[in-house]
């Protein structure tokens, strides 16, 4: 990785910006491919901040290409991880503000100009996240999956192999209609209870982590992931936690697991992606 000089950008190239940092150690980028194979990751100084950038083929970064790319899981994953690796490497060596994937400029000069205009926001974000990391918390309902609602009582004509059985079908037992309604109500009530329990569990865990964190965000719930345990995700949240308090996370998680019986997974430390967007 070298400091950018004044090399002219050919028309067909564009500049991809990964992150804005304080003063990254250039060596951390040496082994990373970034999002282009033939160009090194570089630092672009603007004012007293540094952007981590890479020259890419503009043809690889058009909206049309990306719409297709977002339909190809492997391809998208490659780009997402490449972006994330560069951001993480930068953050490993200095305070870093990540940019979302695919922020591009036509030329170095255009990039520098845009970055200078945003210097205030970068500084605010750097100050806000200084000494903090992001930690993901996922909570899975501890309960067994809801049983399939029981339907009508066994119906002789359907279960009996004897063809004449249908001819002698008896009338429903007295009160069958009422029992049917009560069964339906029971299933509904059970479903509502489970839903409320899930909400309460999510609130409990969220409140506990909020009390330790500087900030918190709810992310979208992931679709059920089996892992053979019958767990359903009820909370997907992420928290900005001061590094001096990160040591408390494990104990808190253990305590919450004990108190709720729920499966609670934590992941981190992440570069604080989720806490730089509002500035």
């Amino acid at each position: 990785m070298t400091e950018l000089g004044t090399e002219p950008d050919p028309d067909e190239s564009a500049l991809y910006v990964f992150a804005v940092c304080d003063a990254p150690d250039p060596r951390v980028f040496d082994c990373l491919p970034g999002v282009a194979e033939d160009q090194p990751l570089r630092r672009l100084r603007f004012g007293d901040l540094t952007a981590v950038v890479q020259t890419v083929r503009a043809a690889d970064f058009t909206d049309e290409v990306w719409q297709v790319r977002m339909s190809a899981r492997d391809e998208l994953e490659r780009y997402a991880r490449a972006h994330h690796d560069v951001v993480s490497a930068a953050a490993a060596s200095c305070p870093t503000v990540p940019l979302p994937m695919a922020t591009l400029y036509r030329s170095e000069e255009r990039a520098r100009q845009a970055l200078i205009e945003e210097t205030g926001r970068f500084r605010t974000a750097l100050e806000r996240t200084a000494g903090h990391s992001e930690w993901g918390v996922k909570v899975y309902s501890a309960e067994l999956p809801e049983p399939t609602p029981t339907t009508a009582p066994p119906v002789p004509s359907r279960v009996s192999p004897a063809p004449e059985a249908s001819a002698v079908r008896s009338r429903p037992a007295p009160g069958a209609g009422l029992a049917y309604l009560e069964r339906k109500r029971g299933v509904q009530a059970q479903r509502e209870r489970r839903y409320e329990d899930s909400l309460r569990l999510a609130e409990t865990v969220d409140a506990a982590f909020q009390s330790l964190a500087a900030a918190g965000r709810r992310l979208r719930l992931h679709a059920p992931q089996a892992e053979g345990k019958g767990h359903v995700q009820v909370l997907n949240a992420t928290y900005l936690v001061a590094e001096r308090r990160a040591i408390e996370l494990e104990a808190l998680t253990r305590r919450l697991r004990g108190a709720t019986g729920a499966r609670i997974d934590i992941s981190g430390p992440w570069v604080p992606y989720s806490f730089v967007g509002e500035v």
Partner: protein
Amino acid sequence: MTELDLGREAYPIPGPPNSNLADILERVLDKGIVIAGDIKIDLLDIELLTIRLRLFVASVDTAKKAGIDWWETDPALSSRAARNALQDENRELRERLDALESKSDETSDER
């Protein structure tokens, strides 16, 4: 640079080593500080992407095998569930109608 007093010297390696794709995508797509670029690329948000890429489809199949199908039996979440509930009710009503009819046949025979 020294102007910013960021108050720390050593930085952890961020990002758990085995982060799954969904965890990464929900950060690199929707989050980060957004600045206007020259080249406009409309990234899908994580929700649409999940639908399009079926990020979790393998897991959902596994989930079904493990009996986790709450979203399928909840009429609010699944059209199939709504249909099943209707079918169940229909079947039950037919059975009862049959029973009533055979009963009324018996009654008229007796007359």
